[in-house]
């Protein structure tokens, strides 16, 4: 195999315009965060019933996707698939930037973001949340080292070891993120052991969808060749992951249906939960899982346009899935008095209503923008992207046709 030639992307006006355009979203998010903090959270849709809202959906999505974005790198250095090697650097970069974006949203939504320093100096080691803070910072460090090993020729020999560490770390990280919910024994929807593995599979799928989109967009924008071989490989892999998520979703609901105590919440999500039921069947299952599968494996699977649409739909489906888990799980009333109808001035016994507010969305999108901006700037200042990913460059023995 030829030596891959990596180069920074071009600077100049188009670059600044691109960064500026993304920057607008970042600024808007900062404004939204300020607005929420200044007035207090009552200006959002969040309340004492629905405690975590849209920002958390985006944050969790980005964090989960971050560890998934590292997959491509892992496949190349841990599982030795050389075809993916030229993509490994971008994969590592995206893993870091997506995580930064997600954490930024999480932090900006805190009641006291000014006390971030407290979060870093006071630790409750029993808290899975505190563990996650360490997992996240550690992840950035580990992936940073991994990138360095890849990019510094003298260090190349350690790439595999670093990649292994990063791979194990990312599995732990996603398990940790999933456990944030898994540990909430109080809430029926979250209290399931399958939550953690499900989050890992979700991360594969969301991370890869974002990776493919960013890869195609960057190469188009930088006007560098990107061959079908690599794109088709990636999209086939995405198809597998989307199907795997679907499988886990089914398993999750089936195991839940097995226990009588979960019938209520299952009925809520699957049958009569209003918006949550619609989100589940229409967006998560229909638009976000089945349609992308059809697009990826169907006749449209050879077109870049359809592939990007499939990636986009996977992302939308993923957001919907996390929305249902986080917000649907809170909207469903907690069962405190079995066999009784409960009512109070504090919305006991009723489905809590939640309408996402504009600032919440702006903040969430801002997280995505932070991730994208950091990625674009990263590829500008360091050599993340190969000059060419044309088929003959990637894998001379592979032709575009048999990759698909």
């Amino acid at each position, binding site marked *: 195999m030829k030596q891959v030639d990596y180069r920074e992307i071009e600077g100049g006006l188009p670059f600044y315009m691109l960064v500026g355009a993304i920057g607008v979203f970042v600024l808007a998010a900062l404004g939204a965060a300020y607005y929420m903090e200044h007035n207090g959270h009552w200006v959002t849709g969040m309340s004492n019933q629905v405690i*975590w809202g849209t920002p958390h959906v985006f944050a969790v999505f980005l964090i989960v996707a971050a560890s998934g974005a590292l997959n491509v790198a892992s496949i190349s250095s841990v599982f030795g698939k050389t075809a993916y090697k030229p993509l490994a650097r971008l994969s590592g970069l995206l893993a870091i930037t997506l995580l930064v974006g997600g954490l930024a949203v999480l932090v900006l939504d805190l*009641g006291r973001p000014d006390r971030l320093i407290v979060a870093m100096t006071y*630790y409750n080691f029993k808290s899975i949340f505190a563990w996650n803070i360490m997992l996240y910072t550690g992840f950035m460090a580990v992936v940073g080292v991994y990138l360095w090993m890849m990019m510094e020729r003298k260090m190349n020999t350690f790439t595999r070891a670093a990649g292994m560490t990063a791979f194990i770390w990312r599995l732990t990280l996603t398990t940790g993120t999933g456990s944030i919910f898994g540990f909430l024994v*109080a809430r029926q929807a979250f209290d399931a052991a399958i939550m953690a593995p499900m989050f890992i599979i979700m991360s594969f799928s969301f991370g890869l969808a974002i990776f493919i989109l960013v890869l195609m967009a960057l190469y188009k924008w930088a006007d560098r060749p990107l061959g079908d071989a690599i794109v088709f490989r990636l999209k086939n892999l995405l198809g597998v992951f989307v199907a795997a998520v679907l499988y886990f979703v089914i398993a999750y609901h089936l195991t839940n249906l097995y226990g009588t105590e979960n019938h209520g919440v299952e009925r809520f999500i699957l049958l009569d939960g209003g918006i949550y039921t619609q989100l589940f069947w229409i967006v998560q299952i229909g638009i976000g899982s089945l349609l992308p599968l059809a697009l990826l494996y169907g006749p449209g699977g050879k077109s870049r346009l359809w592939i990007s649409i499939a990636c986009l739909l996977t992302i939308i489906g993923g957001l919907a899935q996390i929305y249902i888990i986080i917000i649907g799980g809170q909207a469903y009333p907690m069962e*405190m008095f079995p066999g*009784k109808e409960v009512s*109070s001035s504090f919305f006991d016994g009723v489905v809590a209503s939640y309408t996402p507010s504009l600032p919440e969305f702006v903040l969430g999108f801002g997280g995505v923008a932070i991730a994208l901006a950091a990625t674009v700037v990263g590829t500008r200042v360091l050599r993340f992207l190969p000059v060419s990913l044309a088929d003959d460059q990637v894998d001379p023995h592979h032709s575009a046709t048999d990759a698909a």
Partner: protein
Amino acid sequence: MSEESGIDIYRRRFLSGSATAAAGMAIVPGVFLHEIGHAKPAADPVTSDVRWGMLIDSNKCAEGCNDCVKACNDEHGLTGHDRPATDAQWIRKVKLKDKQTGHTQTLPLLCQHCEHPPCVDVCPTGASFKRHDGIVLVDKHICIGCRYCMMACPYKARSFVHETLQDQLPHAPRGKGTVESCTFCVHRVDNDGTPACVEACSAENHNAMVFGDLNDTSSEISKQLRQHSTSQIRADLQLNTGVRYRGI
């Protein structure tokens, strides 16, 4: 220093309470001695010799009565903004109706001051903590407002302060962006007092709430717990709640 001159000396203020002021001891020694009784001296930390608890008799809890809630709101200055979804409620009246028999009853629901509080386990900074005497509190100085504790609480007992506050009461500091919940009126309890809700309930002669030391076998609450069958809400979680109920 100019601001110190020409002012009367109010010795009293500093003589009392501040057990560190040795001078106080010398001048009015009796003040401390017979005040203490079984109460904890102000300078002593709380210990696990005591575990505060509450027994609520839902049979005695009158439907339509809201006195405990009102007392709590007054005590802590929980004024509300006419926004029920975000207004703080440390204690609330819950109405139960048996799905089969139609029997209705009411009871006050508040922080259950668990022995193994999930909110304490999950809090990343340790702001949510349990005192040695079993009272579960939020140290608002180090609360970052992540609300994970609210997600973890099985009783929905916590509120997030959703707006800027002013004119908080000196003994009940609370502010925007942090989480709060029933403190068992810790400021009263530390002064050998009873929580405001319990007092209000007795004042109306409903006597549905008893407060006391669960570790003290001779306390009223321990006696009643021995005598009657009582239950914990969500006993399945094995949190060993400090608040117990009769009649549910």
